[in-house]
């Protein structure tokens, strides 16, 4: 509520006295995909728009979309050179370029998403997407009739691997006999190929599809076949009103607004933020197309994770080969173990590149 007043205040102030351009904090964003992907980059751009909305004329925002990761140093530096004082680089592949540019521009603040290298003027942030995956797993475990889930995956990076594991652990918690079939599309975004992958999984007996690629194509295929599916990154229910169970929604709005405010106030500090449900960085879209008892279970699971009562990676975690994984975080796997996850949990019949 208080923020709402501030927003209103900011807007009112903006209407009354247009601030000089020099007073504005210029904030830059670098996106790896097009803002029209309706997925990952789209959600980051929603965060940028939230900043504009919340802070009105105190800020001026700029973005570059579809920036190739290996060729991004120039793009980041372009923003730094043109007076942007806070720059968000929103994909892992921007890490080394961001580190280099941050060294060169000590008076500019940088924030890099999903990476692990920090500096005095370089913070990192990421979201606990796996919390959402766990809830999905619980729902899928309850609803599947064929006991087979199809998983359209992009690339075997820790975020995706920990997502698969969390999904499996969630599913096993209600349905020990469940199987997950994984297809690596080797792309983040190719609607046709994602659709084909979903079809292959459905043809092999999966009755629920989940995806860690960015387009709504797998969801649409599930809808066309009368099966169920989960959306990715944004609420995708409009693409499959009868098939969508829920979507994991990346929500960068609060984080971006808070960080830009901190930069405005001079309270910005370089730190690492890794938030999930509790931090409101990951949301579940409404639970739909499921019976009330499953809906309740899903809601309870989400609440338990949010409150900290439940951790998806609660020890003991048993890996694919039946070995118990060393528990480095007390009662749960440590953050580092999850952020660098490169093993599958028991029950997953796929191999990771070694």
């Amino acid at each position, binding site marked *: 509520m208080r923020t709402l007043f501030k927003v209103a205040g900011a807007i009112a102030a903006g209407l009354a006295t247009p601030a000089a351009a020099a007073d504005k904090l210029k904030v*830059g964003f670098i996106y790896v995909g*097009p803002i029209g992907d309706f997925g990952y980059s789209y959600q980051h751009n929603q965060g940028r728009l939230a900043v504009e909305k919340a802070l009105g004329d105190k800020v001026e925002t*700029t973005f*570059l*979309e*579809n920036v*190739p*990761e*290996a*060729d991004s*140093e*120039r*793009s980041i530096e*372009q*923003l730094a*050179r*043109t007076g942007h004082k806070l720059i968000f680089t929103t994909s*892992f*592949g921007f890490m*080394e370029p961001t580190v280099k540019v941050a060294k060169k521009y000590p008076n500019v603040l940088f924030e890099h998403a999903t990476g*692990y290298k920090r500096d005095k003027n370089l913070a990192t942030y990421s979201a606990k997407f796996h919390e959402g995956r766990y809830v999905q797993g619980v729902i899928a475990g309850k609803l599947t009739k064929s006991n087979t889930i199809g998983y359209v995956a992009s*690339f*075997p*990076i*820790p975020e995706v*691997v920990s997502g698969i594991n969390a999904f499996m652990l969630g599913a096993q918690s209600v349905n020990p006999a469940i199987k997950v079939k994984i297809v690596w599309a*080797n792309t983040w975004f190719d609607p046709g190929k994602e659709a084909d992958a979903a079809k292959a999984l459905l043809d092999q007996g999966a009755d629920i599809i989940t995806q860690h690629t960015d387009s709504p194509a797998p969801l649409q295929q599930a809808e066309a076949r009368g099966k169920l599916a989960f959306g990715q990154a944004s609420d995708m229910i409009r693409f499959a009103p009868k098939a969508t169970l829920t979507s994991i929604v990346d929500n960068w709005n609060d984080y971006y607004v808070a960080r830009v405010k901190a930069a405005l106030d001079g309270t910005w500090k370089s730190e690492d933020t890794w938030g999930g449900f509790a931090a409101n960085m990951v949301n579940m879209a409404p639970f739909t197309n499921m019976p009330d008892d499953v809906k309740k279970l899903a809601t309870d699971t989400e609440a338990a994770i949010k409150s900290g009562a439940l951790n998806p990676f609660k020890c003991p975690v048993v890996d694919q080969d039946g070995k118990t994984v060393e528990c480095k975080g007390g009662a749960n796997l440590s953050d*580092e173990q999850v*952020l*660098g*996850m*490169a093993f599958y949990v028991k029950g997953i019949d796929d191999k990771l*590149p*070694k």
Partner: protein
Amino acid sequence: MRLELVPRGDVSPWARVLAPVAAVIAAVLIGGVVIAVMGRSPAAAFQVYFVDTLSESWGLQEMAVKATPLLIIAVGLSFCFRASLWNIGAEGQFIIGALVGSILPLYTAGSGAGFWVIPLALVMGALGGLAYAMIPALLRVTFGVSEILSSLMLVYVADLVLDYLVRGPWRDPKGFNFPQTVNFDATLPFLADGGRLHAGVLLGPVLVLVAWFVISRTLFGFGVRVAGEAPKAARFAGFDANRMVLAAFAISGAAAGLAGVLEVLGQIGQLKPGISSGYGFTAITVAFLGRLHPLGMVFGALVVALTVIGGESAQIALKLPLDLTRTFQGVLLMCVLAADALVSYRVRIVTMARA
């Protein structure tokens, strides 16, 4: 009514130089109208897109860095294209070159190995690209498989090989299992303060001179030209067609491979997926923009580099959408091509049916 092209007799060198200027003016007029319709200032757009980039040391350095891989690949490709060989897989040769060239820097990273790593890495990169280009060349001479198809398909394969290595055996053990290698120590030195102009950029002009000499002053260069323009005459003259295929592919593969390793050691400093932002394909445009002439390709590479950097500046300063700057990039290239054609031909509008 139709258009008729009449070849101009003598084309003055001035016309050749001024044509691109005219093309830029034409493109700016087209783009200016669009920008004015959108309610932004065309003059500001022109300033940001062209003037700022070309008037600052930073912009010029970035242009050179961006143009270098394009130029080196294009110079290599020009041998294939002159001999009427369609190597459209330079992107794959670039990637494999980067990959093979990275072997030494990767295994010596952190060991304090000396400067000797760099020249060896460059040679290995060129050899890697060369070897990869031999696949379509050999398939063509032994099985008659079209090089258009095989070279293009091998691009996707190269991409996946790189992907496999950086996610599997070559990934940084301390990198939280993210797909990237360690940072290499053996990187190319920078030439100027405040910018990213690296030593590899110097190789571009050197290779241009070498290519110009080979094409215009050697028997081999003569053979390449004849093979493209008059294959039968080439056979009568005793040039072995198969050897020509292998040689042209070797040159273009080596050039693309060299460009790949230069990009890694000069710009990126490590291997990761997607190290090429389409250089191998864009270089084809560069080669033909420059009419396969070494100096022309220098111009082509610089124009393309300018449109990339200028486009980015316009997105930042004027908040123009990427798709608009990209469309403008294509229109600008078309204008350059058209202007170049108008230097060679006069257009006559024929209003009556031919007598």
